[in-house]
């Protein structure tokens, strides 16, 4: 038990999430992230990836969402009892879908807001700022620019860098590839991997871009309609026939859509 505890940084146990008291969106999601791992949370638009991440970082309140069943533990501590700022202080921080940089603040000011909860002094914050600039040299070049006027890729880097400034042990990263050119996506995932390996940050990565996510993650969960329909080692998933067909677009008879009859049958099989 205590061993499992030490090796698991985050565990989500059978949670149910309801928006506006009536809209049931997550219908029993369980997953876990090993310390120092990169775990991918995959699924189409509307599957419930963002909702899962927000349940973990306790940001659902602002969206009138509620975790009505199940439990979430970060470092062995129940998340429901903590406020978002408690969680950031304990090392769990979210990078939201769509980057959400502070548009009227400069890049550097954005990065510094990431250090808002820290109490370890200016020297340490300066050191981490330097660390972020070393991982993202582009941010250093644009440090004085208003974030709202930088490119999508720079904003994504800024959002990840801002999260790193909190000195996190775990980052919940929501759709970093969204709207970015393939080469830039590759660049950003490469840096995520380095942050994972060199800075020891664990990642839970929500992505629609299944192929890239499975290349960088060690483990993956596939969400459909608010349920985990499949999970496994990233390698296994990327070789799985169903995943290939529905999420990687390399099926036998060309690309398939989710609404295919066959898909429907297979999905039923998974759910059974």
């Amino acid at each position, binding site marked *: 038990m205590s061993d499992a505890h030490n090796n698991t940084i985050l565990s989500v146990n059978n949670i149910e999430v309801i928006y506006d008291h009536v809209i049931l969106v997550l219908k029993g999601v369980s997953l876990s992230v090993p310390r120092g791992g990169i775990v991918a949370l995959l699924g189409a638009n509307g599957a419930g990836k963002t909702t899962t991440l927000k349940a973990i*970082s306790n*940001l659902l*309140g*602002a969206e*009138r969402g509620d975790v009505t069943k199940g439990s979430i533990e970060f470092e062995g501590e129940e998340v429901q009892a903590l*406020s*978002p*700022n408690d*969680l*950031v*202080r304990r090392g769990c*921080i*979210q*990078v*939201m879908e769509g980057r*959400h*940089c*502070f*548009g*009227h*603040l400069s890049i550097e*000011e954005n990065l*510094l*807001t*990431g250090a*808002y*909860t820290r109490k370890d002094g200016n020297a340490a914050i300066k050191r981490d700022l330097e660390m972020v600039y070393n991982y993202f040299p582009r941010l250093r070049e644009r440090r004085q620019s*208003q974030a*709202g*006027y930088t490119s*999508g890729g720079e904003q994504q880097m800024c959002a990840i860098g*801002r*999260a790193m400034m*909190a000195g996190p042990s775990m980052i919940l990263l929501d759709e970093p590839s969204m*709207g970015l050119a393939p080469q830039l996506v590759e660049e950003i995932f490469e840096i995520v991997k380095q942050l994972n390996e060199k800075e020891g940050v664990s990642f839970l990565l929500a992505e629609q871009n299944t192929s890239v996510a499975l290349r960088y993650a060690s483990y993956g969960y596939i969400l459909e309609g608010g349920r985990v329909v499949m999970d496994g080692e990233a390698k296994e998933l990327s070789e799985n026939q169903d995943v290939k067909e529905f999420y990687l677009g390399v099926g036998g008879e060309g690309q398939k859509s989710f609404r295919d009859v066959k898909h429907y049958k297979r999905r039923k099989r998974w759910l059974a």
Partner: protein
Amino acid sequence: MSVEFGFFLETVISGLMAGVMYALVALGFVLIFKASGIFNFAQGVMCLFAALTFVGVQEKFGLPAWLALPAAVGVMILLAWLIERLVLRHLVNQDPIILFMATIGLAYVLEGLGDLMWGSDVKLLDIGLPQGASDYMLDNFNLYVEKLEVVAAVIASILVAALAVFFQKTRVGRALRAVADDHQAALSVGISLNTIWVIVWSVAGIVALVAGIMWGSKSGVQFSLSLIALKALPVLILGGFTSIPGAIVGGLIIGVGEKVAEVYMGPFVGGAVENWFAYMLALAFLLVRPQGLFGEKIIERV
């Protein structure tokens, strides 16, 4: 300098005092609106309440002015904390109109509270700000300028400069701007909105206190003090609801504009121009430039 031009300058300068007041009240509005999206109807009453408290603690407890000031500041901070605890916290995620109505309620509560605690008679406020005409200006430029107006302008400038430094250079100031930009993202990096609300309402309370003291020094502390807030609305339309420089410049334009209009237009339309000039100007502005003089550009780029 010709006599007419001298007279014009005197008119402008006397409009500045009112302008500074409008600017300070509008500034309080902008701070709260930026940080929480709440249109605070009670901002004017906060000026009255703050000034009443300042005078009240001197009368009732015999505090000297230099002690009454921190005491009044303390009361305004306590008030901000109470507002967050008792009102804002429970209305999170509600429609802006509900929050607006809550501030209307707040205005009545504050008015009653001020009456109850300090009485409803007109109070003199004298903290030894210089009164009368400046001899220097009279001797050198042949201009009649009230000393109080000069002092008020200086104090307001110092306050605004201090706020600018606070917002641009400090960790909390940066967090306030972050919340104004994107409160979801602010939450996600661990900024507590509740703390930020207490801080902005405190700052707005302190700005109200300064405005209340200055206005009170000129006309005494009485209910009409809370009515200057009515002029803040046109100031906001002129300056933009989210712009601090807009509030200041807008306040000055309206303060000066209505004085000049009163003096030069009044005789032709039968006077009382001062009462409606601000609203006419705001209306004209709404038609031409609805985002205001300094209304923030919405950065549209993904």
